[in-house]
């Protein structure tokens, strides 16, 4: 793993992985790398929380270990388990090896992360796991060391870089937050979003990408149930290109709206607002609406 020496180097390394960060996120990620605190990122769906970990792993040339949380996840899914089938077979074959040894150990993501020095550990959507698991994780995150009763204590040579994401469906425990660096990822402003789309979809014409982003920016000002994130912007721009559009027009927008807005109410809402209207407004206000957003 190669750790970037300065914040700018980090930003460039992430940009090389086509992940563009603003100053805030760059600083926080840099700190997470340097002082080895877990990084807790929250934000609306689709702002690139998970992507951050992936890009970070690629940028630092470290392996990525991912733990997807879900309700009911426990130590056996997250840390380790024993290969019972093989244990039983071994017993039947009257083997002589101890049953609870490395040979029958199944490494789950957390254990994997400990034995991979300097890797990036992504703990995705922690809010979906339940409180008990969070408590367990707390212990793991504080000293990067776990005890497997049958084998002993396993520690990390070098602690992994931990990125935790949460969608805030549940309030994470304060004790966990306290151990982490915290960052809330906002929707990017217009300029950065355009840059992201261009970096991710280099084959799409510049003009089309800029117009698409400007319209999405307009939509974020509407009172929608589910604001389109960067992920949706990318999907939609790709759809526009696939439909052979040279620019964002009312008709092609209408046809491809489904890749941008994912609920009937939201689509209705946008139609009521008037798609032509919105497109015109986005062209008029395009360049400076980013500033307006920050003022809000």
């Amino acid at each position: 793993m190669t750790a970037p020496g300065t914040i700018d180097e980090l930003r460039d390394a992430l940009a090389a992985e086509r992940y563009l960060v603003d100053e805030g996120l760059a600083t926080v990620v840099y700190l997470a790398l340097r002082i080895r605190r877990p990084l807790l990122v929250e934000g609306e769906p689709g702002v690139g929380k998970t992507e951050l970990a992936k890009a970070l792993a690629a940028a630092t040339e470290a392996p990525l270990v991912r733990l997807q949380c879900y309700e009911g996840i426990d130590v056996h899914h997250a840390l380790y388990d024993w290969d019972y089938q093989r244990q039983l077979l071994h017993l039947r074959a009257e083997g002589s090896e101890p049953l609870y040894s490395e040979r029958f150990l199944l490494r789950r993501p957390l254990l994997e992360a400990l034995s991979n020095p300097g890797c990036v550990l992504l703990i995705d959507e922690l809010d979906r796991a339940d409180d008990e698991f969070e408590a367990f994780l707390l212990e793991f995150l504080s000293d990067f060391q776990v005890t497997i009763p049958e084998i002993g204590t396993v520690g990390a040579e070098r602690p992994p870089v931990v990125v935790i994401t949460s969608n805030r469906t549940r309030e994470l425990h304060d004790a966990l937050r306290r151990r982490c660096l915290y960052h809330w990822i906002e929707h990017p402003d217009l300029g950065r979003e355009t840059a992201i789309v261009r970096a991710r979809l280099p084959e799409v014409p510049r003009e089309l990408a800029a117009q698409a982003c400007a319209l999405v920016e307009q939509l974020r000002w509407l009172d929608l149930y589910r604001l389109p994130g960067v992920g949706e912007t990318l999907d939609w721009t790709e759809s526009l290109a696939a439909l052979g559009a040279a620019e964002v027009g009312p008709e092609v927008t209408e046809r491809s709206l489904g890749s941008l807005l994912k609920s009937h109410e939201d689509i209705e809402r946008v139609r009521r607002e008037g798609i032509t209207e919105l497109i015109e407004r986005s062209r008029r206000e395009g360049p400076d609406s980013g500033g307006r957003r920050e003022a809000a």
Partner: protein
Amino acid sequence: MTGAGSAQLRDATAWVTDAVVALGRALRAEGLATTVDQELALSKALAMVNISDREQFRWAARACFLRGPHEGPAFERVFDRFWKGSKLDGPRGPMVEHGETDPRMPGPQHGGESLPQFRPESRSGHLLDGGSSRAAQEIPTAGAQEPGSGKRRGVLAAYSPEQTQTEVRRLSYQRDELEAVRALGDQLRRAHPERLSRRARPSRRRGRLDLRRTVRRSLRTDGEALRPAWSSQSVRPRRLVLLCDVSGSMERFSRVLLASLRAAVAAGIEAEAFVFATGLTRLTRTLNDRDLGRALEQARAAVGDWSGGTRIGAAFGDFNRTWGRRGLSRGAIVIVVSDGWDRGDPELLAREARRLQLQARRLIWVNPRPADIDLQPLAVGMRAALPYVDDFIPGHDPRAIHGLAALAHGFGAARPARKQRQLSSVAAARI
């Protein structure tokens, strides 16, 4: 971090620490629950960034101190003052002083839902501090944060009794009422709706094969799995979302409703409490204060539009967008307590109620007024929302707060048939 960088910084460490501590204290005074732990993290972090760069300093401090986006504005207020009051070329002195005194000067306590609870605390802090130097020395000993905050609380009780009491008088809960709240909490704990968890528990009954335990057992019988071990799914409390109307027309019930909300929130059954009049206020955190009386007063103070007008549709919309979208109401039992007298747009209410219903496991509407809503010209909202309510319970006096426990229990498990229906006699009998 190695070599020249840290050596160069070592001289500066002392004043950086002072600054960090001052910032931490200022944030605490503003209502953020910062800890020494976080201050240590920031001290470490600052050695990694260019501390004369405002943005880098700001983002490092944000990352270390913030625990949620809601703390952003308060942080920015404090940080602005903090940064302005310091000259980085002439360290020491001004920054510390600034952080110590400024946040307690008049002014910053405006708006914000969490502010009322901190006002007394910062005031007591003011009484405590003999001078800024003493306060700065106090920090290292505050290493154990728990006793520190406990001490502050104690001081609050001792030093500003008038303030707390005048506020208590506002809603004036009697001792027996508070007793009733506690009793309701117990009832709810026993009779809350449940759902199946994905977590497996060991079980005697034949369910899923628990290989782990089976292998262990088989060791006793020479590796022959004679006695399989089983596991089964465990149950968890199903989330209860309570949306209570505290507008003018519900005024005589509001006090008791608030108490019921507190009982539910503190019962440890994953209850979420919201009240609405013209807007929506989330009270779950506020009501969770360990002290019952204080929790109720704080909650009352946090609601800006208490006994105001009613815009149920807008309030539901607020809920759906900020909380429903994150999945708070997904699979939850949602109980709305309101008379449905609405001054907002009935169409909006119908739309939002439908959305709420689609996300919730069950949408229950408790209405203190009698069933004949067609005879109530003001119950426009009720008529609009009714088609989207799974269980409509009119004529239920929320002052009989134990009814809430019965309600939660009675409707727990089953998935409702989604169509309009009037109060069934069974449900009425149960309450």
